[in-house]
């Protein structure tokens, strides 16, 4: 945590005119405005505030409760009003991975994990390098390269799934992991964000190294990359969640072959086909969100920062 803060400070200290959000004194304004006034009005407002917070919290947690309850229940428990199954069916978990299960969940989890990890690391590597090149290397026609990239950001990704499907079909990539991974490796938006980030990165560090004869390659890997970890982590968390939860594209290119199903497609196939054994489907859903809950628990700080600064979510 502290090393991350230190990096932030280095970057903020060097980052010139852009007024980044002051992180440290953030709560300063708020307590003042709440605390400065006394009396009954404040107490009334405070009671209302806490009631609203508690109601909202309950509403937000109800779906999680249903998810857990139904995952551990029997078919009968699903329609019941009980808070928790009287006899939790822990075997719902092991059944998921048994040979008898037609959900193919283990395979789907493996596919999703491979896709999310390769896509996140690969796209960040490619985007970070491109962003650095665009921000820092004084190539004469850099702008001629950059503007078309911005132009591609104008076209909403989901709308292009038909033409992209056509390309995958021409490549004979349908129903393979390649089709699920490779097109997602080239993120114009991540490149754009990295470029903005590197423009704000203090130039002095690199310039000192460059004077000492370090190449762009060396400067990027030894100076810039190690000092960009907080920003990269923020994009990585967002990218991982987006990749893991992606649905339309995996459905389009791999929806016909169970061996290349992702977790989302596998669950959707059973959800839309009206299966009868819902507890197992709920258990699958519960297991499928565990990696994200872990990411969320440990990296929420990066996620919040990424969302706040970029306005994207997976």
């Amino acid at each position, binding site marked *: 945590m502290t090393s991350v803060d230190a990096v932030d400070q280095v970057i903020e200290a060097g980052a*010139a005119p*852009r007024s980044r*959000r002051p992180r440290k004194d*953030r*709560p300063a*304004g*708020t307590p003042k*405005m*709440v605390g400065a*006034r006394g009396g009954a009005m404040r107490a009334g407002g405070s009671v209302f*505030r806490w009631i609203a917070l508690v109601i*909202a919290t309950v509403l*937000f947690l*109800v779906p999680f409760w*249903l*998810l857990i309850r139904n995952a551990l229940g029997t078919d009968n428990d*699903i*329609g019941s*009003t009980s808070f928790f199954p009287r006899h939790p069916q822990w075997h719902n978990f092991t059944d998921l991975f048994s040979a008898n299960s037609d959900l193919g969940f283990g395979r789907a989890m493996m596919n999703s994990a491979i896709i999310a990890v390769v896509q996140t690391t690969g796209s960040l590597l*490619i985007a970070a*390098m*491109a962003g650095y*090149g*665009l921000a820092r*290397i004084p*190539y004469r026609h850099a702008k001629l*390269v950059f503007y078309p*990239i911005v132009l*591609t*950001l*104008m076209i*909403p990704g989901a*709308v*292009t*799934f*038909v*033409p992209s*499907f*056509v*390309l995958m079909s*021409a490549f004979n990539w349908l129903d393979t992991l390649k089709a699920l991974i490779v097109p997602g490796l*080239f993120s114009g938006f991540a490149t754009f964000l990295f470029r*903005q980030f590197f423009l*704000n990165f203090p130039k002095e560090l690199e310039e000192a190294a460059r004077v000492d004869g370090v190449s*762009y390659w060396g400067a990027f890997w030894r100076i810039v990359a190690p000092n960009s970890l907080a920003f990269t982590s923020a994009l990585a968390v967002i990218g991982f969640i987006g990749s893991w*939860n992606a*649905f*339309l594209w995996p459905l389009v290119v791999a929806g016909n072959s169970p061996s290349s199903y992702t977790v989302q497609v596998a*669950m*959707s196939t059973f*959800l*839309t086909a009206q299966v009868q054994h*819902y507890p197992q489907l*709920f258990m699958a*859903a519960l297991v*499928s969100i565990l990696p*994200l*809950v872990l990411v*969320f628990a440990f990296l929420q700080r990066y996620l919040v920062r990424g969302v706040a600064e*970029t306005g994207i979510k997976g």
Partner: protein
Amino acid sequence: MSAEADLAGAGQIGTGTRGRSAKPGAKRVKGATLWFWVFVGPFTAGLLIFAVVPIIWGLILSFFESQNTVSPQHFVGFQNYVDMLKDSAFVDSLKVFTIFAIFIIPLTFALALFLAVLVNQITFMRTFFRSVFFLPTAVSYVVASLIWKQGIFNNDGLANHVTSGLGGSDQSWLSSQHPPLYWIPLVTVRLWLQLGFYMIIFLAGLQRISPDLYEAAYVDGATPGWTTFRFITFPQLRATSIAVVILNLIAAYQAFDEFYNLLGGANYGRPPLVYLYSTALGTSQQYGLGSAGAFILAIIIIIFTLIQGRIFGFGRTDD
């Protein structure tokens, strides 16, 4: 996407840095061209193959009749576009999007802002509440659809337990078209999934407001509450509010997952992408027609974005 790009761009540092690197003096760095392409080449090549080529190919296909094959068959000119615009199902899908947007955008805006203000005002357990509201952001639409379809809005689900507890009768929420109750699951599932995301964006906006403004207002006799919210907080959130509306609109336009998973193959409540999916990739495999539809939808969303940009003065460099 463009709105997102503008968002990030709005706060970028001035043109100074970029200008400097383009100065003639800086140009003569040894091997700059080579190094530039080492860094930018992989991305550019990928973008060309996986973004530009499909778009051009799709554009060509959209002028041809090509069913069950992705190579152009018979040239038909603008016929695919005409057919698409004449298709009542396509026009209906635009209506579905409009209704969806009318519900989801104001609700998301108001509730996310409300949550952000609440979370921003407390000092005790702030991280806890923020996490609770933000947690659904990590959940996929498929998982949420499962919970909504088989946990809340099924025949013996939570919603019917609540309505019968209140003395009402059971409803079939997802299949009732008169009245169109299916909007309730569709809107609530998206609210649950995205409110936390927009709350974080509003929180960031709230924390950028200078405390001095409030101090000054208090000196002038204002009391904390509605007045300061109306005359300080809300105007100060102008840029954030515009961003939230645009991001929300673009996301709603591309809605697919929850409609597909909650309504399945129903012939009602089909937004544009669900319609496009069934036309281009469903049983009919009309790739030429589907490509034409994709371009019509892309053009509509680009026009939306540009008009909004004009109206709100979004992307002005003096932001």
